[in-house]
C-alpha cells in the first residue's frame, strides 16, 4: 500500500496537469471576456470563404446574396431567419453587417454561429461596435477573423471594413483609409465592387475626421455597386451625399426582415426586402 507521503507526492502534480487541461473545457469559464471556444468556432471567416470558394460562380453569372445585420441577442429570430433564408433559391451566401454579439462576448458569437451554420449557404460578417465592447476585438478576431478583409466571388469584389470609430475613441484608425484606398483601387480582377461595414458614415458613431475621406474614396471608386451598413436597425436605400453612391442599410434580426440582393452588369442591382 502506498504511504500518504508517496500518495501526496504523486497526487500534487495532478492539479497542475488538470489546470492546464482545463484550457480545453469551456464550461469552466475563466471570464465571460475570455475567448476559449472549441476549434470549430474559430476562424469562421476563413472557413466560410473556403466553403464559398468550393462553389464558384461562373463568370458573367448574376450574383444573388442575402444581406442582413445586427444579430445581437436575437436568437429566436435567428432561427426563423435561417429557416426562411434556406427557402430562397439561387443564393450564394449571407452577409451579417456587424453586431453579431450584444456584449462582445465569445459565447454570444458562438451562439449566433450555432444558428447561422444551419444555413445551406456560407455566411460572412463584418465587425460591429457591439463586437468591440470589452475584449470583443480579440474575441471577434479569434472566432471570426480579420477586422478588414476582402474577397472576390464571381465578378464582384467584397470589401469588409471596420468603421466603428467610436469604439476607438475616434483615433483616426477606423476606417483604416491606408488599407481601404488600395483595396478600392484594385478590384483583384473583379468587374465591380461592394463595400460593407457596420456604422454608416451618416451616423454619429463614425469617426468625424474620416467621414469626408471615406465618402470621397467611395465616390471615386470605379464600379462600386453600393456601400452596405447595419447599425441603424432600419431598412433604407439612399444616396445621402448625392454623389452617385448608394448606401444600403439593413434591418436588424429583430425587425424580422432581410434583403435578397441581386447584382449584375457593371453596377446594376435589385433589392427585395423579405419578411420572415
Amino acid at each position, binding site marked *: 500500500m502506498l504511504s*500518504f507521503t508517496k*500518495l*501526496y507526492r504523486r*497526487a*500534487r502534480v*495532478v*492539479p497542475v*496537469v*488538470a*489546470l492546464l*487541461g*482545463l*484550457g*480545453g*473545457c469551456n*464550461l*469552466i*469559464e*475563466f*471570464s*465571460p*471576456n*475570455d*475567448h*476559449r471556444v472549441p476549434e470549430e468556432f474559430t476562424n469562421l471567416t476563413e472557413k466560410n470563404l473556403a466553403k464559398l470558394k468550393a462553389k464558384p460562380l461562373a463568370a458573367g453569372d448574376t450574383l444573388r446574396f442575402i444581406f442582413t445585420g445586427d444579430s445581437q*441577442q*436575437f*436568437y*429566436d*429570430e*435567428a*432561427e426563423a431567419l435561417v429557416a426562411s433564408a434556406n427557402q430562397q433559391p439561387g443564393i450564394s451566401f449571407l452577409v451579417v453587417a456587424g453586431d453579431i454579439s*450584444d*456584449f*462582445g*462576448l465569445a*459565447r*454570444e458569437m458562438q*451562439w449566433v454561429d450555432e*444558428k447561422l451554420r444551419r444555413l445551406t449557404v456560407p455566411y460572412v460578417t463584418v465587425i460591429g461596435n*457591439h463586437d*468591440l*465592447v*470589452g*475584449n*470583443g*476585438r*480579440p*474575441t471577434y*478576431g*479569434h472566432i471570426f477573423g480579420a477586422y478588414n478583409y476582402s474577397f472576390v466571388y464571381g465578378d464582384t469584389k467584397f470589401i469588409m471594413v471596420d468603421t466603428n470609430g*467610436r*469604439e476607438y*475613441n475616434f483615433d483616426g484608425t477606423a476606417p483604416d483609409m491606408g488599407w481601404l484606398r488600395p483595396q478600392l483601387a484594385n478590384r483583384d480582377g473583379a468587374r465591380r465592387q461592394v463595400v460593407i461595414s457596420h456604422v454608416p458614415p451618416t451616423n454619429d458613431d463614425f469617426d468625424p475626421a474620416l467621414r469626408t475621406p471615406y465618402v470621397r474614396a467611395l465616390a471615386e471608386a470605379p464600379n462600386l455597386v453600393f456601400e452596405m451598413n447595419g447599425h441603424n436597425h432600419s431598412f433604407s436605400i439612399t444616396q445621402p451625399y448625392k454623389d452617385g453612391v448608394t448606401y444600403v442599410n439593413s434591418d436588424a434580426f429583430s425587425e424580422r426582415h432581410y434583403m435578397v440582393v441581386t447584382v449584375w452588369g457593371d453596377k446594376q442591382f435589385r433589392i427585395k426586402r423579405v419578411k420572415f
Partner: protein
Amino acid sequence: MKKLLLPTLLLAALGAKAAPAPADTTATTSPVKADTPPAGASERKWFRPKHLVLQTGGGLGMVAAGAGYEFAKNHLETDILIGYVPKYYAGSTLSLASLKFMYSPFHLPVGEKLQVVPLTVGAYFSYTHGTINDELKGQYSADYYWFSTDTRYGPLLGSRLTFLAPPVAATGQPRKISVYYELGSNDLYLASWFNNQKGGLAFSQLLTLALGVKADF
C-alpha cells in the same frame, strides 16, 4: 471524455491532499468542555477569515484565490476572491475581484471524517480590471450601452464534500478541507435567455462551472 476526466482528476487530487490526517496531533489533544470555547478561540480576531479558498472557472478567473467567513453555524458564507485570466485566453490580462454569498441548508455527516453539503445556493458579484475597450470618459453618451463591461453578477448552485480532520492540538481549532463545484451564470447570459423565450437559447447554454477547494485554518 478528456473534459470529464480532468476535473475528476482535480477533485481526486484535492481529495488525496485533504485525506491524510496526521495521527500525532490527535493523541495529545486535551479534552475541551462542550460549554466552554476552545482555548485558542479567544485569540481569534473577529476579522480573521475562517477559511481559504482556491477555485478555477465560474467566470471569476482561471485561478481565483481568497478567504472567507462563515456565519449562522456555517450555513452562511462570504468569500472574497482575487482572480486571474492570462492574456492568452482573453486578449488582455484580466484581474477580477469577486464577492460570493452562499447558503448551505444541510450538512450531512458521512462517517467521522466526511461531511456532504448537498446544496449550496448563492450569488456572486465581480469586477474585472484590464478589459481592452473599457468605457473612457466621454466615449459614449449616457445609456449608449445599457450594461456594464466590467461588473458582473449572477447566481450559483453547487455541492460540497468536506473532509474533517482532528482539531489542532494547541488551539482546539477544528480543521476541514472541502472540495466543491458550482454551476453559475451571469447577468448578461441570463438577459439573453430572458429575451429569447421561443427556444432560441437553451438554459444549459448559459451555464458555467467552477471547481474549488476550501480549507479552514
